[in-house]
C-alpha cells in the first residue's frame, strides 16, 4: 500500500485537452502536427514522433511556408501523430493564447509551441519572433503575465511581447540623455545602468510583460547580430571587431 500523494492521476483520456494540467504544465491534444521548441516535451501518451525541422520539411513542403526563420530552424522540432503531449519549461508559468487573424510578437525563448496554422517570422527586434494568422500558441513566463495598453514604456528585460501595435522604438531617459549631450559623450559603454533604456510603445494594441526574467540562452541571437553587421563598411566592421575583442578580454 502506498498513500500520501494527493496528486490527481491522469491518463491519456483524462489529461486536459489543449488546457493547462497545472500552472506549469500544458497538455496538447495532438492530432496532426504542432511546432514545439526543442526540449519542451516533458511527457506524452500515444504515437507521437518528434522530428527535426529540416528533416520533416523534406517530405512536407508546407513547413517552409509556415516557419519562415532559418536562424531558428535548429531550435524547433515538429511533433506529429496522435496522442496527448505534455509541455513544460523549467517550472515557469505556461499560458495558451488564441490568435484570430492577428499578429503577435514574442521573445523567442518564451515561445514553447504553436499550431501549424500559424506562420512564424523573425521580428526586426533581435531575439523576437512574430506569429501571424489564426491558431493557438503556448508561451512561458516567469510569474504571471501582465497585459498593458500603450502608450507605455517597458523595461527590455520584463518585455514578453506585444500584439497588434507597431514595433517599439527605444526611449532614453531624459536626464541620462541631457547629461550625455552636455558632456559631449558619444560612447555609451560604461555609462549604462540598465534602466535608462526603455522600449516605447505607441498606437493601439496590447503589451505583454512578465514580473521577472530568468534569461534562457538564445543560441540564434549571436547569428542575428552578426547578420546586422553587414550594414557596416569594412573599416567600421574592423573598429567594432577591436571593441568586441577588448570587451571579451575584460
Amino acid at each position, binding site marked *: 500500500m*502506498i498513500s*500520501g500523494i494527493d496528486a490527481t492521476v491522469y491518463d491519456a483520456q483524462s489529461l486536459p485537452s489543449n488546457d493547462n494540467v497545472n500552472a506549469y*504544465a500544458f497538455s496538447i491534444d495532438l492530432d496532426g502536427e504542432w511546432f514545439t521548441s526543442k526540449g519542451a516535451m*516533458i*511527457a*506524452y*501518451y500515444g504515437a507521437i514522433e518528434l522530428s*527535426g*525541422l529540416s*528533416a520533416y520539411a523534406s517530405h512536407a513542403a508546407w513547413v517552409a511556408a509556415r516557419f519562415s526563420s532559418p536562424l531558428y530552424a535548429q531550435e524547433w522540432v515538429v511533433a506529429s501523430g496522435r496522442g496527448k503531449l505534455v509541455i513544460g519549461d523549467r517550472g515557469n508559468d505556461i499560458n495558451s493564447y488564441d490568435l484570430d487573424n492577428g499578429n503577435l510578437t514574442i521573445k523567442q525563448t518564451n515561445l514553447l509551441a504553436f499550431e501549424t496554422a500559424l506562420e512564424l517570422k523573425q521580428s526586426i527586434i533581435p531575439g523576437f519572433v512574430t506569429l501571424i494568422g489564426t491558431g493557438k500558441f503556448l508561451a512561458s513566463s516567469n510569474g504571471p503575465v501582465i497585459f498593458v495598453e500603450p502608450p507605455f514604456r517597458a523595461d527590455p528585460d520584463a518585455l514578453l511581447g506585444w500584439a497588434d501595435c507597431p514595433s517599439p522604438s527605444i526611449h532614453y531617459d531624459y536626464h541620462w540623455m541631457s547629461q550625455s549631450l552636455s558632456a559631449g559623450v558619444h560612447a555609451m559603454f560604461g555609462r549604462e545602468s540598465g534602466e535608462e533604456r526603455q522600449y516605447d510603445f505607441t498606437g493601439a494594441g496590447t503589451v505583454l510583460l512578465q514580473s521577472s526574467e530568468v534569461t534562457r540562452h538564445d543560441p540564434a541571437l549571436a547569428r542575428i547580430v552578426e547578420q546586422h553587421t553587414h550594414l557596416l563598411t569594412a573599416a567600421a566592421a574592423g573598429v567594432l571587431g577591436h571593441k568586441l575583442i577588448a570587451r571579451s578580454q575584460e
Partner: protein
Amino acid sequence: MAVLIADKRVLHADLDGDSVRAANGSMVAYTGKVEFKYASGGGGFRAAMKRGVAGESISLMTCTGAGRVYLAQDAMDVTVVQLSNDRMTVESEHILAITDGLQLDVQFSGLRGMTTGKGVATTTVTGTGQCAIMSDGPLIALAVTPGQPLVVDPDVYVAGTGQTQMSIISGVSWRSVIGEDTGEHFSLRFEGQGTIYIQPAER
C-alpha cells in the same frame, strides 16, 4: 516512532528517541537534542559499486535523538509518502528523508543509451515507513496501463509506483540529420501497470 510531516517546502521530522535518514546538508533548523552523522546511502558495498557504475550518487545523513528537525532543499515542494510493505522507485536526488523500516537500493536498468548517466538508475525504496520526496513544482501523476505506455523526459522523472517496466528510447529519429536533433536525446518509456510522477521543471 519518528514521524515525517510535509509543510509545503519544508519537512518536519519529529524524533522520539529514534532516527531518520535525510539528504546530506538538508537540515535547516532543529529543536531538542539531535545528533547528525554522515553515512552512505545503504545497500552496502554492492550498491556502492552499482552507484559508481551508473554515475548516480545518493548520500544520506542519520539524524538521531529526540526533537524536531526541519529539512529542506532548493525550495523544492515536499511530499510525504506512506509505504506499507510495498515498494516504489524514486530518482535518487529527490529523496529528502526516510524513516527506519525502509530499505534503499539502487535499481540498475542496463547500459544501453547511457550517454549522460542520468535518470537511468533510480533508488528503490521498499518496506514499511515514510519517505519524503522533493519536486521542483507540484507533482503530476500519470497512469501507465497495459496497452497505454507513457514516455517521459528523463529530466522530469521523479518517482514511480506499481509494476512498470522502463525502457530507454532514442529521441533522434532516423530522419534526423547531423547537427539537428529533437533536444530529447533519449526518453524513458514505461509499460505495465502503475503510476509515474513527474515535475514540471527539467533538472
